[in-house]
């Protein structure tokens, strides 16, 4: 075992513990804060994988925007009934869900167990400037020009749709009433 392996196990451990907390905590805000910890753990994993760009964006997008959006929404949607502050977190299918998750993990583990061990190790030291290449390939027609524009359209649609559903739809509903 090398130090980097210990470090990876440590990172994976706290990420998984935080993820368990996310799905089991009663208080949804605690879930959201633990989600931040888990997402940070994933960012550290990206850094170990020498994908610094994605580590940074993991923090910027997930922690800086998505987690905050979720915390906002938790605060926005809450009944003002005192005894329902922290209701039972799980629905009736909890056992079934646990079984399903276990089955999925079993299937994945079996697949990974049959993995070709020859491809296990990193062969090339990374001196390839993936960032610059990605920027170039993204907008070249033999690269990802079409996905690039589609992504933009998708984000535009998400923005318009979310604003319509959250703000304008309610406005027109109130007018009808």
């Amino acid at each position, binding site marked *: 075992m090398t130090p980097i392996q210990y470090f990876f196990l440590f990172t994976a451990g706290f990420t998984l513990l935080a993820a368990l907390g996310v799905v089991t905590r009663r208080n949804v805000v605690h879930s959201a804060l633990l989600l931040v910890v888990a997402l940070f753990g994933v960012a550290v994993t990206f*850094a170990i994988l020498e994908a610094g760009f994605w580590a940074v964006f993991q923090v910027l997008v997930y922690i800086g925007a998505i987690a905050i959006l979720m915390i906002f929404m938790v605060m926005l949607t809450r009944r003002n009934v005192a005894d329902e502050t922290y209701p039972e977190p799980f629905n009736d299918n909890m056992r079934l869900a646990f079984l399903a998750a276990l089955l999925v993990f079993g299937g994945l583990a079996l697949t990974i167990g049959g993995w070709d061990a020859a491809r296990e190790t990193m062969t090339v030291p990374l001196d390839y400037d993936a960032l610059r290449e990605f920027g170039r390939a993204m907008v070249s027609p033999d690269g990802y020009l079409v996905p690039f524009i589609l992504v933009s359209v998708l984000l535009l649609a998400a923005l318009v749709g979310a604003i319509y559903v959250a703000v304008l739809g309610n406005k027109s509903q109130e007018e009808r009433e």
Partner: protein
Amino acid sequence: MQDNWLFIGIAVVIAAMLPMLPIAAARILSPHRPNRLKNETYECGMETVGDTWVQFKVQYYVYALVFLIFDVEMIFLFPWAVAYDNLPLLGVIAGLVFIFLLLDGLAYAWRKGALEWS
């Protein structure tokens, strides 16, 4: 590359330790005499009524939403800017179209009044 991130990782640990030191010093040096009145929620002397969880405006969500969309677009714009030297004119125009579509979303939110505070 990994050396860079080793430094950042150590810096994260140190950056967390630095503010802990004075807080720990304060815990040792400062008096600690809590009582019920002192530990009440501070609302300028009024007794706090009801729950803390007051109802918030949906505007907070809208701002966070627009911020999220702009943030995600940065995933594409930063590599585009870094690779600018090697881009053909078509690539530049594709990027501009991308930014223009982004601006469209903002214009929609503006026109529909979703960005108004009140």
